[in-house]
């Protein structure tokens, strides 16, 4: 599988491999093995298999409802598959009890789409919570650790603010700081760029790359943002109807599959009616602060 693009056809159980231009490391670090998942009567995917290499940034792309976020929730043990295995750091987490699952989650950090910061707690309390729960650090040490993490995501002097007093980008960065505060081995990011302006998107993107480089954390990002994906990802997994395509961004850009091409070009191509942009009138003035 090294250096290959893998097409898994879950329903027909056929796997097809095709050569890719850049090698993608293979590993058992984080893997879904023939996982079938459903919510009630609705099948999300059948016998899906994919893996994410250690210490790399992997991005999961796919249409709405393709099961991208569900994969993260499976890895986090928040939902259970109907069948198959979910391997986190080599351990099958399906069917684990609460105590064992808590031990597995110690290796995981998760950045939720909306941040999932506790509304009733301040920024400081939100970040301090996992440390208060799972370490013996005193308040001073916890405060120092929190400020260090906030600084690492470029935030200062926001200790006493509540989550609803933060902008979308700040909330994402605070949530990111909380996700990495216990130094996880694996960071799961669910739509980290959704609802962000281009500048905030770049900031969060840079932070993820920086965290990956400095700490060597395995990062799995679920995103719709193809441009960011192409810039930051070392492995891209695309969930298409009835199959999964995996490869490096460069390899996938030259992929023959029209669906893959269509998916990746949707965000990258210049607008077809670019000439219409000339009709846009720019008015003097500035935005209200």
């Amino acid at each position: 599988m090294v250096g290959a693009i893998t097409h898994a056809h879950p329903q027909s159980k056929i796997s097809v491999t095709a050569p890719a231009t850049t090698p993608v490391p293979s590993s058992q670090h984080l893997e879904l093995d023939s996982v079938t998942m459903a919510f009630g009567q609705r099948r999300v995917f059948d016998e899906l298999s994919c893996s994410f290499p250690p210490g790399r940034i992997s991005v999961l792309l796919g249409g709405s409802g393709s099961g991208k976020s569900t994969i993260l929730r499976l890895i986090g043990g928040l939902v259970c598959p109907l069948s198959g295995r979910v391997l986190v750091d080599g351990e099958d987490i399906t069917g684990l009890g609460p105590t064992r699952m808590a031990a597995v989650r110690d290796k995981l950090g998760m950045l939720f789409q909306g941040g999932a910061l506790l509304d009733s707690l301040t920024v400081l309390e939100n970040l301090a919570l996992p440390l208060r729960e799972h370490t013996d650090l005193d308040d001073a040490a916890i405060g120092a650790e929190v400020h260090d993490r906030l600084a690492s995501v470029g935030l200062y002097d926001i200790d006493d603010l509540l989550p609803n007093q933060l902008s979308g980008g700040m909330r994402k960065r605070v949530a990111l700081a909380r996700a990495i505060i216990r130094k996880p081995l694996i960071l799961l990011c669910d739509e980290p760029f959704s609802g962000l302006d281009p500048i905030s998107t770049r900031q969060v993107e840079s932070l993820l790359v920086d965290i990956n480089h400095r700490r060597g954390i395995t990062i799995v990002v679920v995103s719709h943002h193809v441009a960011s994906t192409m810039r930051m990802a070392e492995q891209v997994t695309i969930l298409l109807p009835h199959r999964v395509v995996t490869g490096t961004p460069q390899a996938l850009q030259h992929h023959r599959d029209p669906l893959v091409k269509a998916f990746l070009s949707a965000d990258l191509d210049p607008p077809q009616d670019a000439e219409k942009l000339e009709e846009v009138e720019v008015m003097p003035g500035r935005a209200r602060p």
Partner: protein
Amino acid sequence: MTGFIARIGARTILFLEEVGRVTYFSTRILAAIFHRPPRIRRFLDEVFGIGVMSLIIICVCGLAVGAVLGLQGYHTLERFGATDSLGTVVGLSLIRELGPVMTALLTTGRAGSATTAEIGSMAATEQLDGLRMMSIDPIHYVVTPKALAMVAVMPLLSGLFIVCGIAGGYLVGVYWGVDPGSFLTGLESAVEFRDDVVGSFLKALIFGILIGLISTYRGYTSAPTSEGVSEATTATVVEASVCILVFDYFITALWGV
């Protein structure tokens, strides 16, 4: 006919499944009480939110209900020339029945619905999942302090409601000419501490358990949408109110409280 029986069967199975889920949820709350660390700070915050923030509504409603009871009681007793018994009537009515029941209904509307909405919106905004991913059990961290606070606060609020109600009845009775001494003497001689007051507190305690359980369960299991939270909140108010009245009958019938 077969379809009808099948529908009844399906409904029964659904009902039993729901009973099973509620029972499992209750045992998780019970188990969480003994987990470490104890959530004393969160419990006190909830006591403040549920109890202290309900003081005004409980006092105002207690006074109003007591005043109405005093007025109705006075006009009824006047027909029999027994207005001196007004203290007994107001006191026993409030302590044995109206105090715990009215407090429970008011608390359901004010704090029970808020509890459901808060937990439901936490589920909808993935805050509960966020706790799970930090290896923090939401039942231990969020649900149990709220449920316990409800249980702890209910007898106290009920006591306050009764005191305010008696004050309202007293003021109205005295205004209409009842002798203040007769009112208080009748009250003192008629009320048995063990049978009436302790029974009243026990009743309030049971209502607190019901409201705490229903409101947290409905919030915890609500669909993660705004519509789901809204439905869960409505269900809390309806189910808790019905349960309070039904349990009130059975407690009265079985225990004589």
